[in-house]
């Protein structure tokens, strides 16, 4: 069975449904507290998929995902890089995406040149959005063209340092998902990015919140993301 390491910390709050989606997709899911991972980073080696669910880790005080990404960079960075090099998949949803960007795992460049800033409305927004997949090469998004999923965040506006960085994101095929209608002021309508290997995906919207018929008109679409990840190893 494909094993998923779901890392949670103080303030993670989408772990239950994210774990549920992976289980529904056929994976075995372990809930691992960041404190345990810090004590023994090598436990990551038992897993094929690493997921950072949504939430408000450490309250998002000091900025969304700041403290959690500090823990990754200071205590876990090499082990996570190693996990990626060896072919593991990493998924970061919402706060998980913020953590991946802040820790530099996305886009995985030497320099830190992108960020997720406050929405242009200056406040939290919850709404359903339509996404278009622009990079089908990443294992998570194969065979998916569009996705209907909700966003729920205050700091989800992708921002780049300059024009070169923007171009580099597109040229390097980092852009994975775009909004059909931009909800938060994100540059080039970007909703999700992958790293240089394509095996690390981060996105602001929540695919785990659209896995049942009753979630929306096209209910259930989000499960494909999780099924794809599991299928990658089978």
């Amino acid at each position: 069975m494909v094993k998923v390491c779901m890392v949670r910390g103080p303030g993670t709050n989408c772990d239950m449904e994210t774990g549920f989606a992976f289980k529904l997709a056929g994976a075995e899911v372990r809930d691992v507290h960041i404190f345990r991972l810090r004590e023994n980073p090598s436990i990551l080696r038992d897993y094929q998929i690493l997921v950072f669910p949504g939430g408000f880790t450490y309250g998002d005080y000091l900025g969304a995902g700041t403290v959690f990404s500090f823990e990754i960079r200071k205590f876990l960075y090499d082990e996570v890089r190693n996990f990626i090099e060896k072919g593991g998949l990493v998924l970061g949803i919402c706060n998980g995406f913020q953590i991946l960007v802040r820790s530099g795992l996305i886009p995985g460049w030497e320099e830190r040149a992108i960020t997720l800033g406050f929405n242009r409305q200056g406040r939290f927004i919850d709404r359903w959005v339509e996404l278009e997949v622009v990079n089908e090469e990443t294992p998570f998004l194969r065979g998916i063209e569009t996705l209907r999923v909700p966003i729920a965040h205050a700091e989800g506006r992708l921002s780049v340092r300059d024009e070169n960085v923007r171009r580099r994101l597109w040229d390097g095929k980092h852009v994975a998902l775009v909004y059909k209608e931009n909800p938060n002021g994100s540059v080039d309508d970007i909703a999700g990015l992958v790293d240089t290997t394509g095996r690390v995906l981060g996105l602001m919207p929540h695919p785990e919140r659209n896995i049942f018929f009753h979630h929306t008109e096209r209910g259930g679409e989000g499960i494909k993301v999780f099924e794809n990840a599991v299928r990658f190893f089978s």
Partner: protein
Amino acid sequence: MRIEIRTREGFPDFLGLAVKEEISLLGIEVRNVKLYEVYWISGEVDEGELERVFKDYILDPVEKEMKAGGFGEEGITVTYHPGVMDPVALTLKDLLVECGIRVKDVKTGRKYIIEGELSPGELERIKEKVLMNPTIEREVKGDDVFFIPSPYTFKLITVPLLNASDEELIRISKEGMLSLSLEEMRKIKEYYKSLGRDPTDIELETIAQTWSEHCYHKTFKSPIEFEGKVIPGIFYEYIVKATEEVNAPWCLLVFKDNAGAIAFDDEYAVTFKVETHNHPSALEPYGGAGTGIGGVIRDTMGTGLGAKPVANTDVFCFAPLDTPPEALPPGVLHPRRIARGVVAGVRDYGNRMGIPTVNGSVSFHPGFLGNPLVYCGSVGIIPRKFLKKEVRPGDVIVVVGGRTGRDGIHGATFSSMKLDEQSEKVSGGAVQIGNPIEEKKLLDALLRARDEELYRAITDCGAGGFSSAVGEMGRDCGAEVELSHVPLKYEGLSYTEIWISESQERMVLSVPPEKLERLLEIFREEGVEATPIGKFTDTKKLVVRYKGEKVCELDMDFLHGGVPLTLKRATYRKREIPDGDFDPPPLKEALLSILSSPDVASKEWIVRQYDHEVQGGSVVKPLCGNDGPSDGAIIRPVLSKERGVIIAHGINPSYGEIEPYWMAASVIDEALRNLIACGGRLEGSALLDNFSFGDVNDPYVLGDLVMVCRGCYDFAKLFGVPFISGKDSLHNEFEAEGKKISIPPTLLISSIGILEDLSCALTTNFKRDGALILVIGETRRELGGSEYFRYLRRKDGLVPRVYSEAKDIMERVSRCTQERLFLSLHDISEGGLGVALCEMGIGGRKGFSAELSCIPATERAKRPDIILFSESNTRWVAEVDERDKGRVDELLSGIPHAWIGRVGGEDAVFLYGGVEVLRLPMDEVERAWKEGIKW
């Protein structure tokens, strides 16, 4: 050491822009506002080292820049008062410590740089109205921000009571902010006479907390003389009795424990509790509402052995947002500021906890100017085997969660007092800022410990702090506490302060000694403090020590059974008058105006700020289709089970102002018809009652309360739906410059039910062109308190009644929904049928045509305007596929209903006897409804 962070040139500062927008709401235009983050760090700190940590780990490398020592620009710097919870500072301190920086203390602030020409008066207004709230914040010049607490030296304080005269008793109660009446003080004096000693200060405080209106609900338990008879107590006589007589087998917990509970299925129970947090929200809306929602979530966590919170609700009552600033009495915040602060408070706490906020509403009335109402509800799910709790002598008392500070001292007694212009100053300590992440960690740890069955009982530390929590848990056996073991936020707290502090995010557990070690281990693993502070005993005494010295010894029986209940007098003043004849106004203006009126218009601005999808179980959301309104919410609380919980409510202060008894009937009907509209059934459902009233020492206000309780009894009985929990908030009266502003009698009824088959869930938006439109229920000339009469500025009219056939109608509608005969269903409430139809059209992005003359109506109601705008109860609009018409007619035979038209087209079209009486393009309808409120 000061560090400032700001947005780099070339990037937008959206938070600064939001402040600019708030300033413009004052009618002051400024060029630009820039918002800087400010951090002060004390200790043996190396500046370079600190800067490196900030740059490496904290600073956003793209959009932000920082400067140690500050950028030097002139600005207004605001920081919290000493001792106010500052979660950002706590987080930063932990991070710096992990980086090996020898930090002693951290403080945060905000610096505003306002560009534009402002007079000193304007600047003061901006500071006061937008930039800070003096209740919790202050402006600082320079860097002198750290609070150095003075150490505490123990000294036992006794209060000379034994020989006190009545005047002295009153003075002792008032000066100690005890809110105890003379009768109560006399009773206490008598008790201490029998002991032959004076009370200690902490004993008196403990009694005051336990006996407070907030904790003991004296008004609901006291005998009341009314209409020549004595009612032994309205709580037992009306509320409890209704539930007993309904005798519903699905009730699992009623009126005990921290929330009520009904059966979800054979394995799980659903819990529900709704609280008010009115007084704190009036003074500090953000902190008041945040700690309100935080508190009610802890009620869920403290029900049985701890339920898991799965949904929040929020219902607000404010004064009109367009109240002119000059109309505000001194000491009152503008309703817009209250609204924005309250919404942000609920948002930041609920979202951070990861609990979807799924249902709510806002009512507006000038009576809420001094006393806004903030209801926060929490729904939980719990395995039924964990519903029972017990405390056994010998169990260890363990406090878990946040540390104890001076926060919220006298919250319980404060909430039982009237507010006045001085409240802001004297009660500042009762207002707090919450730390939701502390509570989330506590929840994570608690559920693990619960599942391993490591404790036998739990309760939250709410009003009254430890004094209430430990006093309540140990009431049947006894308890002993050592206060010096309680972890403190800072030194300097006296033993009494520790005991009655209402610091947030704390709970108390009763832990069998053999399980203590494992319990502490789990809490350690989750990064939550857990500390044994005493044990439960079999002495029937509450004993409290500080560093070994006994400071309190009270008999539990006296503490919990000694409250003297005095006879109160109530009088009912009837003020409803039937409406006279009047000519209908032009319908177009009337309908558009009602659609955009604050009680009716879209609340999307609020809804969008709440995460209503988290936990992944949404079925019916607060907005449906093209962002039309929902009648209630449905969630799937256990993802592996295809079964839902429906949550809805009813509230109508405008009816309460005119006719309290029929308001109660109407809001019960509304709460239940909303449940039905979502696909629910009466069977298996339950109600919660939340009473908010003015000063109940006024016999007329008390008379209204009695009538509302009677209504609760009569209509819970009629529908066969029990009350499982409730709360009262009395004394919602504001006094300024000798003038009293009292709230209208307000009853919030929340409803909860189970949906066995999620495919029967219904939303309000029209689904299909050509489908038939059905109106169910009879329309009467019931216009008192209606939106229509508010528009016409008429004060007369009868408020809607509820008739004996209401239960039968609801059950038949449920039959239809269970057979999935409706495409959409919407209840008819504020604004009447016209609004209901328009809302269904907005949600479905479809027009419709409706013939009004065929709608079942009484003779006096047969007029286009009355049929459009009457707010008669027990009515719905349904959308039905033509092929199901026969079956629907069959199920509704004998029930007033009519097929009034079809869905489709671009316009909302109303006919009367075949003649078009009103046509409006749906675009215009949508705009009126969606843009009605200027937040």
